């Protein structure tokens, strides 16, 4: 039915002709590969750890694969021209995450531990994919988000601030990034990044003219007008507040970096990036001087193998163990189930990249990085192709926030930057991160769908 040669039969319904889902067929093919690879991963893990395949295989493979099918069918109906690569990439990454978490669970069981994560990860993945589906169904046109720009701002800032509230705010591993009720914890900052991206996109599209307007010239550099620095100052203060009160350099850097890139894309004025980075670095350096945890992290980053850092509480032990694991994996890795990634604290969440590195090796990590890069480039492609500025800005922002998060968290594990508490998108164990990343996926799919539809309408 996808064959254009059948078109004459349906000329009475030209709209249907336009939505020939060629993209969807590509997507279906790629999805088969993705869930197939996920099946191999789980099977290999079971064979390595249990020496047999068990029915548990179905728990970790079938529901998520089925959800992928549902999401694919939803796209066929609701966003048939959406980008065909994004969903398979997401499935591959998410499935790899579940496999690795399951593999770590098996090690925990073997060592008589009790804290298991894979089951929860499957449930959260399903929930996140359902939410993504709901976004696709109930947000038929993302442009309506533009109407809620300031609501998005309040929601975003509110989400950022909630962990600092009494009673529900939770401090986990030294960072005040969670809220919790009973045993249930959630990292609202993950969702805040979506709300804030929507806010930035809407706000900047409206204000880009005045933001780009030229102010006084100082030392040969044309500064923006003073009052236009207001928003930058606000975001700067908010970012530093996250750093100071929530003890997380990564989150702080993520939001500020996102904002700088979006303001740059909107206005084309590099001065914002220069001034912004200068302000952030200054603020962070002062914070590092004042607050011991920042300087400790930096020292652990620069000299992780130093015995005193290695032995210090909150020192470089975890980082070094993660690096040892990756080094031990070498080029080809030990094979899934063949290493001991469970030696690293938080192997299933903050250090899942290192866990993967130990077992799938440099080659596997290259593939993971390539998947992220492909995901981000598909998002940026929307920025290039779309005719609407809000859409372009939103897609660019959502893509860049993924890229920046991957850089900060993976860079932290591989010692490119100091280690922070962000999650590895789609791989790491954790519900908030899954939900927010699947919403981003849904939004990117939604925006990409409107590119071609528009182009066709214009013909």
């Amino acid at each position, binding site marked *: 039915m996808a064959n254009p040669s059948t078109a004459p039969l349906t000329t009475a319904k030209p709209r249907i002709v336009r939505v020939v889902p060629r993209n969807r067929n590509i997507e279906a093919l790629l999805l088969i590969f993705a869930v197939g690879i996920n099946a191999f991963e789980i099977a290999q893990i079971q064979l390595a750890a249990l020496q047999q395949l068990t029915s548990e295989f179905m728990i970790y493979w079938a529901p998520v694969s089925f959800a992928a099918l549902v999401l694919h069918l939803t796209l066929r109906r609701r966003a048939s021209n959406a980008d065909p690569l994004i969903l398979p990439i997401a499935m591959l990454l998410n499935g790899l995450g579940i496999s690795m978490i399951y593999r770590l669970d098996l090690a925990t069981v073997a060592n008589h531990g009790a804290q298991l994560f894979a089951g929860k990860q499957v449930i959260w993945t399903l929930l996140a994919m359902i939410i993504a589906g709901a976004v696709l169904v109930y947000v038929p046109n993302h442009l309506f988000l533009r109407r809620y720009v300031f609501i998005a701002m309040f929601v975003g800032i509110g989400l950022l601030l909630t962990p600092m509230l009494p009673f529900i705010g939770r401090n986990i591993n030294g960072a005040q990034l969670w809220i919790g009720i009973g045993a249930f914890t959630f990292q609202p900052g993950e969702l805040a990044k979506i709300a804030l991206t929507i806010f930035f996109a809407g706000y900047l599209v409206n204000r880009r003219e005045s933001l780009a307007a030229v102010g006084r010239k100082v030392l040969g550099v044309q500064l923006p007008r003073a009052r236009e620095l207001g928003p930058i100052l606000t975001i700067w203060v908010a970012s530093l507040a996250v750093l100071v009160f929530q003890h997380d350099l990564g989150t702080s850097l993520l939001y500020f970096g996102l904002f700088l890139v979006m303001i740059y894309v909107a206005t084309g004025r590099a001065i914002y990036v220069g001034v912004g980075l200068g302000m952030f670095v200054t603020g962070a350096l002062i914070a590092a001087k004042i607050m011991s945890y920042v300087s400790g992290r930096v020292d652990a980053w620069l000299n992780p193998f130093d015995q005193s850092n290695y032995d210090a509480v909150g020192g470089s032990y975890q980082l070094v163990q993660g690096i040892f694991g990756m080094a031990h994996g070498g080029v080809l890795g030990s094979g899934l189930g063949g290493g001991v990634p469970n*030696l690293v604290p938080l192997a299933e969440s903050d250090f899942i990249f290192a866990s993967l590195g130990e077992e799938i090796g440099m080659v596997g990590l290259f593939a993971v990085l390539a998947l992220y890069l492909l995901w981000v*480039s598909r998002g940026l492609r929307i920025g290039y192709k779309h005719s609407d500025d809000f859409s372009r800005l939103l897609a660019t922002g959502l893509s860049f926030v993924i890229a920046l998060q*991957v850089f900060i968290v993976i860079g932290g594990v591989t010692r490119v930057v100091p280690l922070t508490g962000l999650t590895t998108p789609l791989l790491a164990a954790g519900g908030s991160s899954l939900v927010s990343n699947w919403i981003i996926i849904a939004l990117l799919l939604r925006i990409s769908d409107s590119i071609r539809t528009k182009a066709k309408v214009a013909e």
Partner: protein
Amino acid sequence: MNRQLNRVSATVGAMFFALFVAVTTVQFISADSLTNDPRNVRSVYDSYKTQRGAIFVGNQAVAYSAKSDDVYHYLRKYSSPMYSSVTGFFSFFQGATGLEATGNDYLTGKNSAQFFEQINALFSGNSVSGANLRLTIDPKAQAAAWNALGNLTGAVVAIEPKTGKILALVSKPTFDANWLAGHNGRISAAHYKHLLNAKSEPLINRAIGGDLYAPGSVFKIVVAAAAFESGKYTPLSRIPNPVRYQLPGTNTFVMNSTEGRCGVGSTVTIADALRLSCNVPFAQLGIALGQDAIRSQAEKFGFGQTLHVPLTVTPSTYPSGMDDAQTGLSAFGQFDDRVSPMQMALIAATIANGGVAMQPNLIQSVQSSNFATLSTTTPSQLGTPISAKTASRLTKMMIAAVESGVSYNGKVPGVSTAGKTGTAQNGPGQPYTLWFTGFAPTKNPKVAVAVVVANGGGQGQSGRGNTLAAPIARAVMQAVLNR
């Protein structure tokens, strides 16, 4: 907007490029050094998955893995504490030392010599069995060293001068590696704690410089070598021979151990000064040569460099920035000179080998688990610290020291023997460190040896190198020559 997007894309590209580089660095470029970090326990874990290779001395496996009924599958066993200084221990809980650590790649089958076995294993799913190490140790020499050292604290190293093969390597007191190899963590940890806290420090490998020792008079060999290499001296060069010598700029006097003149006459030859082991002429000779000439000669012999045999040998040190008085003291092995027995044995072996230093080495060959030879160590030269002429002059002087000098207890009966004793002071009231180094036979030498006895051999300041260290060396040389 496209210009901005280009730049954002470039930024993203740069960020990912950094990540690719970082991953490559960790997993490829510095992977080996990270894997070998002692804090990385993964190699140890891995090593339990396969049968670890054995370490052979002659036809006896001195360290081997036997089947066990627990989750670890194999239990490491050691035949005798006599070889603990060589093998070290292999413990699930305390890591590994000695050859168990430095030879780990071979013993676990991860060395490049087993490349094809590894490829085969990759496809077959079987794990590679660890390779066996065959050592250069001569069991008779090792036993002789072990027995001769008795209950003394010290070390013996014997080397075959032509090849650098290490024939004996003993450090005492030592430990029974079986104590740490057990799979019960509590017992193993208790044993380890006991060994760690023991006053006799059994975990220190004295032979390769877990501790370094003041060399005393054995260092005179180095100074004599520096003198001959300078071209300004011969063994017959004469040096003033007072009863005592005031060190320049101090009120300190150097005396010979006899507290008299060195032989007769107002001057003495370097040859006689070495034969009779006199401090006064050597202090003057050292000051005349200067600390730089002595240091340069010492470094040519290997001071200041880390040797891998493949056990890691702590570099011996000759101090720098000394004044003349300190140089004078350093010239007869006092002040801050610090030497390992391995270094001393290497010097003796170099002289025995006509001035050519051979790389000391413990591993004769590597064999796969079915005893096919994977690689054999070929002797390699470290350098030529002294000329053949200097070597032959030193040999003659060391023969004299044994045959008609103060090092006579090193003489192997019926064999021409070269040697030099040392009795180093360690400060007021401290027991002496006693040395002997030498080789035999002097024509076509078969064995060079260095013996150190620490803590004065239990005799405080009354023991001498010739009375305590030399007989041990003799026993070891005899064992090699009689085989």
